[in-house]
């Protein structure tokens, strides 16, 4: 009897220990700070932890993709990060430096369900969110909603326009959309027509560096119109009670892509892989789109029509195709043109 109860106690202890050990599996997921962090933890990380009680996910917030790659470069010898969500052009630089491990369909079947434009040659990770450029405006200043980017060139907008300028990718997206609309030469021609099309807009610009983001000055009325990212604009529209509104401009829009990657040399590679697969699953994609209005990258995700209508998914005909990796190669030349030809018009 005594022996048996001892054995039972030992077994219980062993189970306790092993479950304790299982719970001790921890992964660090690095992504954006702020709004993204709040919503991503609730919509994706918490449900993942519930479904995988053995894995604890720590969210490591960073202000930008460049800050993330800085961390990864510093940790290269002994990575402390397992999964990273960052902008595709920075993910390309990270792939070139061997910071990421390539994902493949055999070990991660969910990749087969992704839209074809969620994968990029020469990038180890795959797209986890699609965002797009929108025209944002203060609804008090514009009782009739503007529809065109040229609303930023009108006299009423004098000194009231906010645009995160080149080399920020919001300014770059604007340049590409205007270039395409004006029959421009695209990336090979350094978006020449886009630069020209900025001429009537630039004199109206109040600031090219809205900090921390472009939404606050428009909500406050310090500015009335500008461009920003759809997902954050939608959330800011909600939290401001409709003071800020967003519309896809008639000239078109462009996608911004966040890529999810496995870090090379991760000590918890299996758990990290599990998390990446979950982040790409229809369930997580649905949950995050409905929470923050990033368009999903998984074609199987069944999203509430109310949420999907606030993304660019139903306006794909207006999306200007952008090869961000090709753009990254000419970014310094674009910055140069921008400085010489656009900024002087706004002094």
């Amino acid at each position, binding site marked *: 009897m005594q022996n048996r109860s001892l054995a039972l106690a030992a077994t219980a202890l062993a189970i306790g220990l092993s479950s304790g050990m299982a719970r001790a599996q921890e992964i660090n997921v690095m992504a954006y700070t702020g709004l993204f962090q709040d919503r991503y933890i609730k919509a994706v990380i918490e449900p993942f932890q519930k479904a995988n009680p053995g894995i604890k996910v720590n969210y490591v917030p960073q202000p930008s993709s*460049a800050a993330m790659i800085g961390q990864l470069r510093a940790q290269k010898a002994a990575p402390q990060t397992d999964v990273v969500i960052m902008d595709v052009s920075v993910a390309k*630089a990270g792939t070139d430096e061997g910071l990421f491990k390539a994902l493949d369909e055999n070990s991660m079947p969910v990749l087969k369900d992704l839209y074809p434009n969620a994968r990029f040659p020469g990038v180890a990770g795959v797209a986890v969110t699609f965002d797009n450029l929108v025209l944002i405006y203060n609804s008090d200043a514009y009782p009739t909603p503007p529809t065109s980017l040229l609303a930023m060139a009108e006299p009423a907008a004098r000194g009231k326009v906010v645009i995160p300028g080149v080399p920020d990718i919001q300014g770059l997206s604007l340049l590409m959309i205007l270039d395409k609309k004006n029959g421009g030469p695209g990336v090979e021609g350094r978006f020449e027509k886009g630069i020209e099309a900025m001429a009537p807009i630039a004199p109206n610009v109040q600031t090219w560096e809205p900090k921390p983001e472009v939404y606050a000055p428009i909500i406050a009325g310090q500015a009335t119109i500008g461009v920003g990212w759809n997902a954050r604009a939608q959330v800011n529209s909600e939290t401001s009670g409709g003071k800020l509104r967003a519309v896809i401009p008639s000239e078109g829009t462009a996608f911004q892509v966040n890529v999810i990657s496995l870090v090379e040399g991760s000590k918890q590679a299996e758990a990290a892989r599990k998390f990446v697969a979950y982040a790409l699953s229809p369930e997580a994609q649905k949950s995050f789109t409905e929470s923050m209005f990033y368009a999903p990258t998984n074609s199987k995700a069944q999203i509430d029509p109310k949420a999907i209508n606030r993304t660019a998914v139903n306006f794909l005909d207006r999306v200007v195709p952008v090869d961000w990796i090709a753009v*990254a190669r000419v970014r310094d030349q674009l910055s*140069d043109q921008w400085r010489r030809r656009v900024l002087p018009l*706004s002094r």
Partner: protein
Amino acid sequence: MTASATHAALPEAPKLDGRALIVMLLLPITAVNLIGFILPVVNLAMISFMEVRSTGAMTGNWSFAKWQLVVTDPFYWELLWNSVRTSLTITLLTLLVSYPVALYLHRSSGMWRSILLVMVISPLLLSAVVRTYGWIAILSDRGLINNGLMALGFDGPLRLMFNLTGVVIGLTEILMPYMILALLAGFGKLDSRVEEAAATLGASPFRVFWRVVLPLSLPGIALGSLLTFVLAVSSFITPKLLGGGRVFLLATEVYDQAIVTLDWPLAATLSIIVLVVFGVALTIYSRVLKSLG
């Protein structure tokens, strides 16, 4: 002086022991400087010679490309000149507004002096970011100044920020506490009895100031100007927030290249240039101090 005093105090101590002691005493600060300053600067210099692809990926090879670019592209020379000129303007303005405050503080005493000192130092308890946002509230189109001006009948708001004016106003205020404290530290030689003596000999108040007060406060002015200049050249948050993307300075360019464009070697090259500017400023400062005796 100090060395001979030490020898006098320790006459029997063998020479080697003294040396060993000095080495031992210097070791901690040498280690701190090595780890905290020399190594990062060496690392920075090394990054400036690394090869980077246009996408931001570092190849691991060495290259002079960024130094060549910085030396040959007039944009970077303009950037250097802009930074130095703007920082000198800010230093001069900060000196002009801080000097009377510091002089008054130096002459006040008791409770009043303590209250004034706390008022001067208290802005340092707030981060520059918060104070910059404060300036945005004051300088914006619907801010304190423009609302006041428009109430007085001016038509249309004055453009006070998102340009160089805003940067100069913001940085001048933000750097004032440093200047005031440095001036106070340098006012040591200033003795009210000397001023009284000059006045007794018939000098007008202006003459007393010009011939007595100002020359005696020159060490403080030199120290304060050095400190303010160095802080102005290296500040980037305030120029970013108040410059509206129109003001290009070395520090903001370092930030853009490192954080936005991901060109670390270029950012490192520009950082080394900032260090060289500091070196020149320090040299000028020590020359000025020497000439003051």
